[in-house]
């Protein structure tokens, strides 16, 4: 009975990693679209090469649809050189503001965390 009252142990590392990636995925997608419009597969390739986020298509497409519904992205169909139309996404003004806010927070948060982690890294060496 007493044991049940003891707080649960900390989350396993893999669960923590999922939480972290969850928080970053939206920022990663919006950032990938900062300088140019991209279509779905291009966004996934950009995420994989730029941040190591190997996101399945079944996750990205509905997420892009949600970001569009929230007014952060807009889309347009473009007849591509590939011979078939592609749906390109670009940031809306609201999306650009959101990325700036997220990036600002990310920068200050990671800097604070770096300070905290400094002794840990020192110990590791």
């Amino acid at each position: 009975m007493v044991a049940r009252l003891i707080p649960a142990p900390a989350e396993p590392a893999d669960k923590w990693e999922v939480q972290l990636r969850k928080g970053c995925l939206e920022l990663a997608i919006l950032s990938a679209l900062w300088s140019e419009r991209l279509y779905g597969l291009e966004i996934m390739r950009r995420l994989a090469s730029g941040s190591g986020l190997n996101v399945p298509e079944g996750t990205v497409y509905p997420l892009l649809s949600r970001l569009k519904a929230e007014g952060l992205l807009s889309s347009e169909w473009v007849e591509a050189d590939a011979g078939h139309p592609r749906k390109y996404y670009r940031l809306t003004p609201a999306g650009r503001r959101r990325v700036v806010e997220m990036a600002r927070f990310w920068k200050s948060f990671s800097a604070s965390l770096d300070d905290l982690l400094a002794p840990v890294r020192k110990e590791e060496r």
Partner: protein
Amino acid sequence: MPTLVSPQTLIDRYLAELRRHLRALSEEQVTDIVEEIRSYFRDTAGADGAMTEAGVHTALSRLGPASALAASYVTDKLLARAQRSRMPWTILRGIFGWATLSLKGFLVFMVCLVGYTFGASFFIAALAKPFNPKVGLWFVGPDSYSLALGMTDAAHQGHELLGWKLVPIGLALGGGTILLTTYFGLWCIRRFRQTRQMRQLGEVAQ
């Protein structure tokens, strides 16, 4: 293991199934989603534009089952709309989409349906009472021992329990139940969307 089905047939079947499961959305939205996935299949083809069976299977596994992919679009759209509007009808409609996916969704839908029906019955009865005094909470007995809210043909056999108190009690009880059901529905929707996103994003870590 090679199959007798051509890659193009596999794609067509997948897209047809996706379209079928997206039927809760407007035709414009369905076409937009299906064409985007079709475009994705074409992008994964080789330089000559031809798709191999192995390539199609890889693409299909990364998309997941058509029903699950459609559910991600439909449920999220309906539930997001419900969260934004906070109106009982859109909440019920959103939860109905969830109910088609799981037993938990079905139970939440049933609780909300009962809550809204109960709340609306009392609320409407309270509003109607001043215009029609026959409206009330009737104890219909002694044979049936049942309660009837509203106008009942059997009213002459029983007696009214609340009288004019139905107006304040009905408004408070009805309005309160509708409000509580709305909060409960929105809380469940929020929890479900968070869990669903976590589950989908769990695949990101693998």
